[in-house]
């Protein structure tokens, strides 16, 4: 048909038209949101809080694992010698133990040296002097060879040590590390559960916002369908709006997470200084922040996709 043909010439190439349409909708949907700043901001804030909560917990957990990560390998056996063991005997024992295959390093904590340090640090100097003698035994600290495949080797070594007549008690300082890891594991799983639930909440928030938006644009959708707008064309602004909510929520969540960390950072630094530690709280890395924003975009897009799929087909011109 001649009329339609002349239209085709004036129209741009299909790809260019498609790209133009997308760009136009992308900007228009952003414009739509800025036209109702209060409600848009509230939606974004809800998304941001829902994401910042698990993100903040994740950061704390990450830091906790970071502190303890070195401890697993530095399993150390403390060997308390009997009170009547002299320094010389202790040296002999140490030399003997060095020959063990399972033992990497042995060092002696001399009981006189230990007492002196304890007096200095604890401030209980006078009280300890009142005791008369030195209540502390010599202590050997043993660094066992860690063989990940044979955890029972260390246990066997401890059993052997405990049978030695000069040794009062040998114990592995690992139990509490194991417990800590078990606790961290629980915390990690809890965060996943919380994050999943809040993720669903984000999905629903976006879905509901888009649903209301679809209802507000009922007239426009009908008219657009009547003059030949495809479903994809009508769907597009709502999907882009979901995407914008996702981006906005993700970026704002990043900001909230960093803000929260900076608020507790001082307190953590103070605590670390009390432990003579240079520990510093580590925030979200750039790639973690990007993953969070990416996830937020995905949730926003999915939420709007669900709403659009459910509600757009209900609107037909009549």
């Amino acid at each position: 048909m001649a009329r339609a043909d002349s239209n085709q010439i004036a129209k741009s190439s299909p790809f260019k038209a498609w790209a133009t349409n997308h760009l136009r909708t992308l900007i228009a949907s952003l414009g739509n949101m800025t036209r109702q700043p209060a409600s848009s901001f509230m939606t974004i804030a809800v998304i941001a809080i829902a994401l910042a909560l698990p993100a903040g917990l994740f950061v704390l957990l990450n830091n906790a694992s970071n502190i303890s990560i070195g401890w697993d390998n530095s399993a150390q056996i403390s060997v308390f010698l009997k009170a009547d063991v002299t320094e010389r005997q202790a040296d002999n024992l140490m030399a003997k133990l060095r020959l063990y295959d399972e033992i990497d390093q042995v060092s002696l904590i001399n009981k006189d040296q230990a007492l002196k340090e304890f007096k200095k640090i604890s401030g209980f100097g006078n009280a300890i002097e009142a005791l008369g003698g030195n209540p502390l035994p010599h202590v050997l600290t043993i660094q066992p060879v860690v063989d990940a495949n044979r955890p029972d080797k260390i246990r066997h070594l401890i059993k052997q040590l405990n049978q030695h007549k000069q040794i009062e008690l040998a114990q592995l300082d690992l139990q509490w590390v194991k417990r800590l890891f078990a606790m961290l594991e629980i915390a990690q799983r809890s965060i996943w559960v919380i994050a999943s639930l809040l993720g669903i909440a984000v999905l629903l928030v976006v879905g509901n916002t888009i649903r209301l938006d679809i209802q507000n644009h009922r007239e426009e959708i009908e008219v657009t369908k009547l003059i030949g707008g495809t479903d994809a064309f009508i769907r597009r602004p709502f999907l882009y709006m979901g995407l914008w909510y996702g981006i906005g929520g993700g970026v704002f969540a990043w900001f909230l997470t960093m803000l929260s960390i900076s608020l507790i950072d001082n307190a953590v630094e103070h605590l670390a200084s009390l432990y003579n530690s240079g520990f510093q709280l580590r925030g979200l890395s750039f790639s973690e922040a990007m993953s969070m924003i990416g996830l937020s975009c995905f949730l926003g897009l999915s939420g709007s996709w669900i709403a659009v799929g459910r509600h757009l087909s209900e609107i037909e011109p009549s």
Partner: protein
Amino acid sequence: MIRFDNVCKRYPGGHEALNNVSFHLPRGEMAYLTGHSGAGKSTLLKLIALIERPSRGNLVLDGVNLSNVSNSKVPYIRRNIGIIFQNHHLLYDRTVFDNVALPLIIAGYQHKEIGKRVRASLDQVGLLNKEKSAPITLSGGEQQRVGIARAIVHKPGLLLADEPTGNLDPELSKEIMELFARFNDVGVTVLIASHDLDLIKQMGSPVISLSQGQLSHNDLEAATHG
């Protein structure tokens, strides 16, 4: 352009809006569709615009049988139809310009081309100076003309109008009808549903009349079968 072949339309609930309607509106022709309210005028237009589907019979538009067009093809068929409604169906949250530009945006025209065509279209309906106005600030006749500008901006081959003069005084009504006649002069096929018999008589185009869902008068040639 439009060929009805024993078309029936029965709504859920049993109401029979159209019964065995057959006619042929050739390309470039203009015709009026008349009848009392409830005679089936709107249903007939809705069938052409694919808002409703026929229950029985064949309806061919521009060589395409509308009875078996898939839903995904519907938008592309509608793009060759300009539809004008009695209640305008304008979008009141945007300007006259944006309303008229909508069909071009849907079709993916470039920005510059849109400006040119929208202004040409507004010029044709005599509203060139109103492009930045909000539709709500316009009179009923002006709003109707915005609706017409939107229907013709993408140069469709077929114009459908459902009671386009329903709310207008006789003088404005005549102006609107003359506008349609001008589009027809440049080759657009036009079908106007109206119950304003006096005005239709003045215009002198062929008339199709419906009465209780059946064709009661047809100035056009009868549809040829097969």
